């Protein structure tokens, strides 16, 4: 029996066209743009200057606080610039530009292909290694992993959940990672479990549209007492942190509470793989798997890319760019991330980041929004909302700018999953307005 979360949710077509394409190593780009803002929290502070020579895996930016993460060079070569560059949204972010020369790795990094099973490090060392390797949540939110693993007073972790739900349509990077590197993922999970404590139980949640991954992970965990694999129903947003805890443990995360308050810590399978590489292979987070996909079956890839590779490079190798350096005419939009929560790319020169899980291409027809009509109070958005909010009400309040009532109606609980927007028969821009109001309220709250 597959488990699922109890409130709301939608059933978009899963469109996992790229699931049978093995992970390819993306060639080392000529030039990388490494953004200093690849994690939640304070942007990292560069420690290299223009003209410095760097090696792969060398520390190039230090964390600017506890909720921050270091950044490492993903290629070897010379630093050609440290200046603000527009990111994929067109917003300026401090970026280190490295011109590639050769592929020299920092000493001490194990590049051998074999899997290292035996765990020889202590929990403290695991924790230190994770925080020094710049590992962030690779499910999309890019929250620094060491912060999540740090025990809070009075809250004892009971469960470590590895999130292999990958509920966003199109994306297959986590699926490929589980199939091709299942052992590593599991070792990474085990490392995090040990860092949290011996008595913590591990659960791997995988949506049931990935039977191969479920079977494989079950085989790998068959001898383990602490780990179990739980199939989840294919339903969006199954991979949301709060939804996953609800589905697996039937525990609710209260408003403003952290998921750890329910005794559960959720980590993406991609993060587990990065932890494996950091601890067992001494390799910081400099590469990740992403999916390039579209409804056009000729453009389907799963790449392991170096952080900072320009989006245009990836798309051109995947066959989505024309000869003139522009997007192929059949595509109108590139989305960074999944189709539900991803953000449109407005600058193809921008680099991919640590948490980029996919680059999706959509045609003009697919991206067109329909003309918004009038709300007919059908309450479909209410039924779909996994946080049990009333999107139609929040939308009206947001339009009227009624901050206090928005807060009373729990606008902060919105996880921006987009279920309301997806179901609305009147095509109202529900999430657009709610997100705006939510961010404005959050800003207000922080000021106070």
């Amino acid at each position, binding site marked *: 029996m597959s488990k699922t979360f109890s409130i709301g949710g939608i059933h978009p077509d899963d469109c996992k066209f790229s699931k049978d394409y093995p992970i390819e190593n993306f060639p080392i780009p000529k030039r990388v743009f490494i953004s200093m803002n690849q994690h939640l929290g304070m942007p990292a502070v560069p420690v290299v200057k223009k003209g410095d020579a760097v090696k792969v895996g060398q520390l190039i930016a230090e964390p600017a606080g506890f909720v921050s993460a270091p950044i490492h060079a993903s290629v070897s070569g010379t630093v050609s610039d440290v200046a603000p560059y*527009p990111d994929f*949204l*067109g*917003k*300026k972010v401090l970026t280190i530009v490295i011109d590639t020369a050769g592929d020299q790795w920092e000493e001490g990094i194990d590049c051998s292909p074999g899997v290292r099973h035996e765990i020889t490090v202590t929990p403290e060392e695991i924790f230190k290694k994770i925080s020094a390797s710049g590992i962030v949540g690779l499910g999309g939110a890019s929250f620094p992993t060491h912060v999540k693993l740090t025990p809070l007073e009075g809250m004892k972790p009971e469960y470590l959940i590895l999130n292999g739900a990958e509920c966003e349509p199109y994306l297959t990077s986590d699926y490929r990672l589980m199939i091709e590197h299942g052992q590593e993922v599991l070792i990474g999970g085990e490392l995090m479990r040990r860092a949290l404590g011996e008595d913590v139980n591990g659960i791997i949640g995988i949506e049931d549209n990935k039977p191969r991954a479920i079977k494989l992970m079950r085989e790998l965990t068959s001898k383990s007492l602490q780990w179990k694999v739980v199939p989840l129903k294919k339903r969006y947003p199954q991979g949301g942190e709060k939804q996953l805890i609800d589905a697996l443990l039937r525990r609710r995360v209260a408003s403003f509470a952290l998921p750890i308050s329910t005794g559960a810590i959720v980590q993406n399978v991609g993060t587990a793989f990065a932890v494996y590489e950091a601890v067992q292979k001494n390799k910081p987070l400099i590469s990740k798997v992403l999916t390039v996909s579209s409804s056009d079956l000729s453009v389907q890839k799963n790449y392991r890319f170096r952080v900072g590779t320009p989006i245009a490079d990836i798309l051109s190798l995947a066959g989505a760019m024309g000869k003139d350096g522009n997007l192929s005419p059949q595509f*109108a939009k590139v989305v960074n991330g999944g189709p539900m929560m991803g*953000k*449109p790319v*407005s*600058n193809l020169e921008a680099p991919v980041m640590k948490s980029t899980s996919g680059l999706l291409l959509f045609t003009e027809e697919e*991206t*067109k*929004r329909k003309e*918004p009509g009038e709300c007919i109070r059908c309450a479909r958005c209410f039924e779909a909302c996994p946080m049990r909010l009333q999107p139609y009400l929040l939308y009206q309040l947001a339009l009227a700018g009624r901050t206090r009532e928005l807060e009373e109606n729990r606008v902060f609980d919105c996880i921006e999953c987009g279920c309301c927007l997806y179901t609305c028969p009147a095509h109202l*821009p529900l999430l*657009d*307005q709610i*997100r*705006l109001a939510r*961010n404005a309220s959050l800003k207000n709250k922080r000021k106070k």
Partner: protein
Amino acid sequence: MTSTLLYTILSLSILGGLLAVILYFVAQKFKVQEDSRIEQVLEALPGANCGGCGFAGCRAFAEYYINNPDSSSFICPVGGNEAMMHIAQILGREVKEQVPKLAVLRCNGSCQNLPRINTYNGSLSCAVAASLYGGQTGCSYGCLGMGDCVKVCQFNAMVMDPLTCLPVILEDKCTSCGACVKACPRNILEIRPKGPKNRRIYVACANKDKGAVIRKVCTVGCLGCQLCLKACPFEAITIADNLATIDPGKCRLCRKCTPVCPVGCITEINFPPKKQEIGNE
């Protein structure tokens, strides 16, 4: 039959009379003594309830103004000097004459000058677009062109120009209430003095990037080249963050800065055409 009618009329009239007497006494007892000047001041105010003065509406402004003798720093931007003089007469107070102001758009990024590099098809609102990404052009400071300012203007003083994709401020209608300034997520609208004979000079750009970056995306963006700074005889121009600003208090409208600007982003409004002599010099 007649008796029924009679009783009904009688009882109702007695009841009515009785209630009238009660109401009269209650009204006397709970009478609110309102300052009669409030009505007068309200009459003198334009009654737009726009909030441009900083109060919730005209009434709130009138009450505050009457009760605080040193409130001369508050003015009604919509009514302007005329209304304030009238109010001063009613209250027997002195009032400083204010310079008439209006909103100006600090962006010249029309469709021709600032080419669109992508298409936005989300909710048609500048605020939403600004929260999502950097904008349809390569400039992350300029006008988004979806007209949030036009939507909030109560005085129909703004229209979108379909040719340039920029809002146009109608001088005779703008009351400098500042609603558009608050609505603009990019902060490119500014309230500036109207200037003598409605003439004014300002820098129509808000981009703080370096010149080389701006040059790539926009043909009329301020480069921060400092030529205008050197040309200005009155030290009215300052350059901060690669962006020139003209202090309206110091500017004497000599027009020496406009010809030197390499991109032509210093905008003159309501000046007669330049004489040929400048070109001959």
